[in-house]
């Protein structure tokens, strides 16, 4: 049986990668991700994890190394943040196109400039279209569970795609939380050894990464997109398996007090927990608000989302990144597009907050709520507003 421990979330993440028996860890330090790979290096040095720890010279090489080791048939993990993720950009597409089940923890952090080591989602929002499965954790327990789940999904023969598990930098990576750590046998029961469907093996030679002539490029891209779409049911299936094995349930979209809510806050990542407390407080004041949390970002669970917002009149979409030159942040832009296609009538108000580590307070949720009500009543289209900007 697993045990309940108080552990820094980064260390918990590293521990679970160890329980998953990763074969190769490629590592390059960047704050706030560093504790994850540091702890993995200790586990390897102490003999607690039998893996090759490859301390590469850059994140570009970290992802390249992961592609190589995954193509060789090894269970492969890396972790990064911010500039490091941006440096990997080029190879992220290739990892997906080669259908390699690499797992990466992304400790979300803002992008330069100005340089900031603190949390927001600008790094991952710049990587929306890389063809990876992407999940967002809300707390330490979710980091642990989503990481196990990531290997399970990535390596499923029906999927064969890389998975990024997002966790907010510092807010999650550097806090100590009570965590239910599974034991080795439980993890092994959930996640057996990796059996690659194909690998670089001289006994059975294959060519990987060939030229995509115009005659085949479109088809190759379509196959990739279809694989990502079809991973949805497998992702759910393995969450159900996780619930059976460990007793914790996960859904692509989570709701909180939405049953009779007029207005819902739409959030991702750890802000969800603050939002819940804000919702509780506003409910006490008789305001009918609720919350919709996006846990699965790619493939986007369109129908689950539409179902979750069905009863609401107004959505308050909170973006943690800017999309300069557009009237909305990246999340709101996507949701509006999706809702338009579905003929949804809800009013979408959009706020950007918590950039570069700025705290988001409960009072600000109340402010956002009132601005959104006013805008919705006027009926006029509302451009994204930045919350708490010092003028």
């Amino acid at each position, binding site marked *: 049986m697993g045990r309940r421990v108080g552990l820094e979330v980064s260390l918990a993440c590293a521990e679970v990668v160890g329980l998953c028996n990763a074969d190769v860890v490629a590592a390059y330090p960047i704050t706030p991700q560093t504790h994850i790979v540091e702890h993995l290096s200790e586990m390897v040095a102490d003999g607690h994890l039998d893996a090759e720890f490859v301390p590469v010279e850059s994140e570009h*090489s970290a992802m390249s190394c992961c592609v190589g080791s995954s193509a060789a048939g090894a269970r492969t993990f890396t972790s990064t943040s911010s500039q490091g993720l941006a440096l990997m950009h080029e190879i992220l597409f290739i990892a997906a196109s080669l259908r390699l089940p690499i797992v990466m923890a992304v400790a979300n952090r803002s992008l330069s400039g100005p340089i900031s080591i603190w949390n927001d989602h600008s790094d991952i929002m710049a990587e929306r279209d890389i063809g990876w499965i992407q999940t967002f954790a809300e707390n330490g327990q979710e980091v642990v569970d989503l990481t196990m789940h990531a290997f399970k999904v990535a390596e499923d023969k029906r999927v064969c795609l890389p998975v990024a598990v997002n966790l907010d930098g510092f807010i999650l990576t550097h806090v100590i939380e009570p965590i239910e750590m599974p034991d080795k046998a439980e993890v092994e029961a959930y996640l057996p050894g990796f059996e690659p469907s194909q690998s670089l093996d001289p*006994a059975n030679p294959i060519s990987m990464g*060939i030229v995509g002539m115009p005659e085949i490029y479109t088809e190759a891209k379509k196959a990739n997109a279809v694989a990502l779409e079809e991973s949805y049911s497998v992702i759910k299936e393995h969450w159900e398996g996780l619930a059976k094995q460990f007793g914790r349930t996960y859904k692509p979209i989570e709701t909180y007090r939405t049953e009779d809510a007029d207005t819902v806050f739409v959030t991702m990542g750890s802000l969800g927990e603050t939002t819940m407390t804000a919702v509780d407080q506003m409910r006490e004041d008789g305001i009918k608000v609720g919350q919709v949390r996006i846990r699965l970002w790619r493939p986007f669970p369109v129908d689950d989302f539409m179902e979750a917002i069905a009863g609401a009149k107004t959505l308050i979409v909170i973006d943690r990144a800017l999309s300069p030159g557009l009237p909305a942040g990246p999340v709101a832009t996507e949701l509006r597009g999706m809702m338009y296609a579905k003929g949804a009538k809800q009013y979408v108000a959009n706020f950007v907050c918590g950039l570069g580590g700025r705290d988001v307070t409960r009072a600000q949720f109340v402010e956002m709520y009132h601005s959104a009500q006013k805008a919705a009543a006027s009926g006029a289209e509302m451009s994204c507003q930045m919350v708490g900007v010092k003028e």
Partner: protein
Amino acid sequence: MISAAEALKDFQKITPKTIPLVEPFSKGHRACQGCGEVLALRMVAKAVGMDMIAVSATGCMEIISSSYQTAWETPWIHVAFENAAAVASGVEAGRKALIRKGKIKDTGAKIVAFAGDGATADIGLQALSGALERGHDFTYICLDNEAYMNTGIQRSSSTPYGAMTTTSPPGPLSKGQMTWKKNMPMIAAAHNVPYVATASPAWHVDLMNKVKKAVTIPGPAYIHIYSPCPTGWRCGPETSIEAARLAVQTKVFPLFEVIDGQFILSREIKKPKPVEEYLKGQRRFSHLKPEDVAYIQKRVDADYERLLKLVQVTNPEA
């Protein structure tokens, strides 16, 4: 880890009579006629044999070998332009872990990365340096055709002084390439890897033996192969091997090995031919004036002298 010299104790040389018949790199490629890179690549592949895992950088050899039909009879992977060494690191690390854990058998497969001079000396230098420094057991082959050929003959840091490329055009203010060729084999050797060598397809048995040594020795090895490109050098496809031979005979591209830090000349050039003879065969140098040729001759001589001194210093007994 055992030293290179120890690993080569029972080394069985390839001779003209024992050149391997296998063709891990075979039919189905689309290189230009007389391409020096593809000639060298085929020799390398023959020397390594069928138990090879090839990692390619983006460039001519990747494009010509994998469009429509693969020319690779062994496992092959291409990821991007600048990362062949990093991908090879991953393949090596992955296999090492799997072998240790008993998940795959150790068949002694050799991991060999291929890249052009641009992918090696410019954009990929960092990844290469990292992989050499970390000591992965792989062989890195630079196929040096002295420019970015796949994108249409642009200069690289390996383009020789005076050469015309599309981004080093000669003109009233330019002699063509204005900088001296980057000395990539020396940069590789500075990493203290067990084996570094230069090779030429004009000395194919020597080339194959160097490759065989590189894959025999545990740890990282680097081989820099001079690879004429008729298309980019503006010379006839039938003159590639001649150009490769002249480069050695004029001391422009000396053949040597660095084994455990010791420099060894593969072929001492006692009666060098004038550099001019080499330059005049290629239209990329046709704009050079006699004083430019004299300058090149002087620097080539000086570089060769330096190499001789390195041989003496690192091999005091020889």
